[in-house]
C-alpha cells in the first residue's frame, strides 16, 4: 500500500506537531488551530478504521527498519478500536475544555492534550516493549501535567501522588522488559512471542510487568492514587483520565496477557487478577457510596469499573475457547462503554458543580428541577455504568455473566451482581440529593447549553453502544497475531 495514504504516521505526527504548534503560537490562536487538528485526527482514525476493516492488520516499519532491529507499529482490530475510541472521547473532552477553561488555562491545556493524544495513539499502535515504555512515560507526564495545572493544593497533591505511583509502575515495567531482553535478545512483541519460553526469567519478567501495569491501571489494592487525581483535576481532565489514560496501561496488560499466552501458563495469576477485580468492584462501590463530594463518587466508581474490566482475565481460560471469546468481547465492550459513560458522567458532574459552585453532594439539592438535561445526561451514563438494558454496559455484563456460566466459574456472577447493586446504590444516592427541595439558594450559575450537550452526547453514545455492540465486537475480532494467540 502507498505509504502516503496510510494514516498511521499521521496519527502520531499530527498530535506531536499540534503540541509544538500550540506551544508556539499566541494564546488566542491555539483553539482554532487545535480544532483543525481535532478534525484531521478524527478523519485519520476513520480512515484507519476503514483500511483495517478492509485490508486487515497493518504493519508499519518505522524508519524503514524491520523489527526486531527497528520499531514496528501494528494496527490490528483492537488497536483500531482504541484509536477510534480515543479520538471520539478526546474530541468531546477537547471541545468541552475549550468552552470550560479560560484563555490562559486553555493555552496550557492544548499542548498537554496533544502530547497526551500522541502518547495514547503511540501506545495503541506499539508493537515493541521498549517503545511502550517510552509511550507510557510520555502519557504519565502529560497526565500529571493535566492534573497539576489546576494549580491548587488539591490537584497538586493528587498530581504528586499520581506521578510517584506512575513512575514506580513504569520502572517495574522497564525492569521486566530488561529481563525479557536478557532472556531473549529482542524487544519486538512478535519476535518475543515467537521465541518465548516459560523459564524462571520470563515468569519473573511477566510478574514485574503485570505488577507495574496493575499499579498504573489502579487495580484494587494499588488504587489509592486514583480517586484524588481523577476527583481533584479540572473536569475535562478528569474525564480524559478516567476514560482514556487508565485504559492505556490496561491495554498493554491485555496485549501481554494474550500474546504471550500468560493465561495458559500462569492460571493462578488469572484467578488472582479476578480476585483483585472483585475486591475493586466491592471496595470501589462501597467507597463511592460513602463519598460526600460528587466528583469523588465518580472517581471511586472508576475504581469499581476497572474491577469489572479485570474480571475478563480469569475468564480467558485455555480450557473453554467459547467462554474466553465471550469474556474478551465482554471486557472490551465494558471498557468502551465505561470510556463513554464515565467521560459523560464526569462532564455532567462538572456542569453540576459549575452550577452550584460547590463540590459536595448536599448542595445539589434542587438540581433536577433546575438542570434536567444535565441530570438526564448523568442518569444515562449511570444506566450504562449500572449495566441496565439497553446500554453498552448491559451487553458487556451480560457477556461476562454468560462467560462465567460457560466456564463454570459461578463465583464471578455473585460479584457482578453485588457490584451492580452497589453501583445502583451510589448512583441513586446522587439522584436522591438532586431531588431534594431545600430552602437553599437559587443563585445557581447557568452553564452554556453547549457544554451540557457535550456531556449528553457522550452519555447517549454509551447507551447507543448497547444497540451497536456488534460493530466493535467485529472489529476487535479481526484476524491477526493477537486473535491467533487467543484461546
Amino acid at each position, binding site marked *: 500500500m502507498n505509504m502516503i495514504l496510510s494514516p498511521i504516521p499521521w496519527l502520531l505526527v499530527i498530535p506531536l506537531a499540534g503540541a509544538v504548534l500550540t506551544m508556539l503560537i499566541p494564546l488566542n490562536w491555539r483553539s482554532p488551530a487545535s480544532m483543525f487538528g481535532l478534525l484531521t485526527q478524527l478523519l485519520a482514525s476513520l480512515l484507519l478504521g476503514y483500511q483495517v476493516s478492509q485490508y486487515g492488520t497493518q504493519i508499519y516499519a518505522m524508519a524503514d527498519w524491520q523489527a526486531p532491529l527497528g520499531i514496528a507499529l501494528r494496527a490490528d482490530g483492537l488497536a483500531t478500536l482504541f484509536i477510534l475510541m480515543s479520538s471520539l472521547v478526546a474530541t468531546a473532552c477537547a471541545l468541552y475544555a475549550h468552552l470550560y477553561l479560560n484563555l490562559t488555562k486553555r493555552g496550557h491545556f492544548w499542548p498537554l492534550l496533544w502530547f497526551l493524544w500522541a502518547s495514547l495513539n503511540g501506545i495503541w499502535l506499539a508493537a515493541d516493549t521498549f517503545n511502550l515504555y517510552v*509511550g507510557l512515560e510520555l502519557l504519565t507526564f502529560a497526565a500529571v501535567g493535566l492534573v497539576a495545572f489546576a494549580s491548587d493544593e488539591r490537584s497538586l497533591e493528587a498530581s504528586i501522588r499520581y506521578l510517584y505511583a506512575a513512575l514506580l509502575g513504569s520502572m517495574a515495567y522497564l525492569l521486566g522488559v530488561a529481563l525479557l531482553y536478557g532472556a531473549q535478545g529482542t524487544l519486538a512483541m512478535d519476535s518475543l512471542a515467537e521465541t518465548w519460553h516459560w523459564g524462571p526469567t520470563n515468569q519473573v519478567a511477566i510478574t514485574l510487568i503485570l505488577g507495574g501495569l496493575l499499579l498504573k491501571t489502579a487495580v484494587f489494592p494499588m488504587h489509592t492514587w486514583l480517586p484524588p487525581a481523577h476527583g481533584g483535576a479540572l473536569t475535562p481532565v478528569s474525564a480524559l483520565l478516567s476514560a482514556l489514560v487508565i485504559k492505556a496501561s490496561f491495554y498493554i496488560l491485555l496485549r501481554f496477557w494474550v500474546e504471550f499466552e500468560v493465561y495458559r501458563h500462569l492460571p493462578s495469576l488469572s484467578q488472582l487478577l479476578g480476585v483483585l477485580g472483585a475486591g475493586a468492584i466491592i471496595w470501589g462501590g462501597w467507597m463511592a457510596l460513602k463519598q460526600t463530594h460528587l466528583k469523588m463518587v465518580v472517581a471511586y466508581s472508576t475504581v469499581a469499573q476497572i474491577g469489572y474490566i479485570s474480571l475478563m482475565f480469569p475468564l480467558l481460560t485455555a480450557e473453554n475457547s467459547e467462554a474466553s471469546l465471550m469474556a474478551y468481547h465482554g471486557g472490551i465492550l465494558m471498557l468502551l462503554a465505561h470510556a463513554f459513560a464515565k467521560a459523560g458522567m464526569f462532564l455532567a458532574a462538572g456542569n453540576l458543580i459549575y452550577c452550584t459552585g460547590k463540590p459536595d453532594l448536599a448542595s445539589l439539592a434542587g438540581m433536577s428541577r433546575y438542570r434536567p438535561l444535565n441530570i438526564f445526561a448523568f442518569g444515562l451514563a449511570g444506566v450504562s455504568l449500572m449495566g441496565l438494558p439497553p446500554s453498552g454496559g448491559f451487553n458487556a455484563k451480560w457477556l461476562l455473566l454468560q462467560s462465567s456460566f460457560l466456564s463454570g466459574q459461578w463465583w464471578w456472577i455473585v460479584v457482578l451482581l453485588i457490584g451492580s447493586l452497589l453501583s445502583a446504590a451510589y448512583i441513586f444516592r446522587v439522584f436522591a440529593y438532586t431531588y431534594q427541595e431545600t430552602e437553599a439558594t437559587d443563585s445557581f450559575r447557568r452553564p452554556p447549553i453547549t457544554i451540557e450537550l457535550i456531556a449528553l452526547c457522550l452519555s447517549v453514545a454509551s447507551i447507543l453502544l448497547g444497540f451497536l455492540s456488534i460493530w466493535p465486537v467485529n472489529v476487535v475480532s479481526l484476524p491477526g497475531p493477537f486473535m491467533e494467540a487467543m484461546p
Partner: protein
Amino acid sequence: MNLLIDLTLLTGILAIAATSLLSRSLFQSVIFFILLGLTLALGWIRLGAPDIALAEAAIGAGITGVLLLDTLGHLKKTGKLDKDEHRPSYPRLLLAILSSVTLVVLLLWAVFHQPTPAIQLHLLVEEALPDSGVSHQITAVLLNFRSYDTLLEVGVLVLAVLVGLALQTDQHQQDSLPGLPNPLLHACLTLLVPAMLITSMYLLWAGSDRPGGAFQAGAMLAAAFILLHLSGIKLSAQLSHRMMQFGLLLGFTVFLVVATSSVIGGRPLLAYPDGGAGLLILLIELALTLSIGLILLSLFTIANSPPLSSRSGGSNGH
C-alpha cells in the same frame, strides 16, 4: 585483579546508595546521591559502556545533583527542612522490607536462570551499520534504527518543561536569587565556560564514530548554562521569552520535520533519504544538543520560580 576491582566498586555503590537512602541528614543524602552517580560512571566503564558513563557523569553526577542541591537550598530557606518529618509507621516499615526482599529474591531467581537469548540483535546492528549514516553503533540505534523512541523521548523532555511552565504562576517570574559575586569565580568562568562549550561540541562530533552524542553534549551545554546562571549571568533573563521557547522546541521541531518530510516523500516515517542519513542525523543532533541544554537549564530555573517572600504554612484551601 579485575574481580577485586569490580567487587570493591560494587561494595562502594551499595554502601553509598544505602547511606544516601538512610542518612539522617537530607544534605548528606543528596551529597551521597551525587557520589553514587560518580561511582556508577566508573561502573559503566567497567561494563564497557562509555556512552552511558558519559551521560551518567554529566546527568547523574552533574545536573541531577545540582537540581537536588538547589531544591535543598530552597527548602532550607524557611528553616523547616526536616522538621515535619514524622517517623514512618511500623506497618509501612514491614511493607517496605517485605516488598524489597520479595523483589530481590525474584530478581536473583530470574538472573540465575538466564537462558541463552535466541536472537542476537547486535549482529543485525553490525550488518545494518553501513546503511545507517554513522559508524558508532549507539548513535545508529538512537537516531536511525530506533529513532522513533528517541523522538518520543525528546517529547518527554519537552513535556517536562511544558508542565513546569504551566505551573508557573507568573510568566516573567525569574529566579530571584542573586549570583555569587566572587571575582575569582568570574575570572575562572571565562576559562571554564568556553572549555565546557568546546567539550560539548567535541562530544557531539564524536558521537558519529565513537562514544558521545547529542544527550551528553546537551547535558554538558546545560551544565555550562547552569554554571553561568549560578554565578549571576542569567541566560534566561537575557533571552526573550519567545527566543527561549523557540530554543526549547528547536530540537523536537527539527526532528519532527525531518520525520514528516520522509512521509511526504513517500517513505515511512523517520526514514532518511538514501545517502542523506549522516548529514540529517548530524543536523538533528545539533538542534537536539542546543534544545536539551536549554531544556535542562529551564527545568533548573523553573523550579526556582516561587518567590522567596511567599506564605509558607497556612493555607486557605480546604
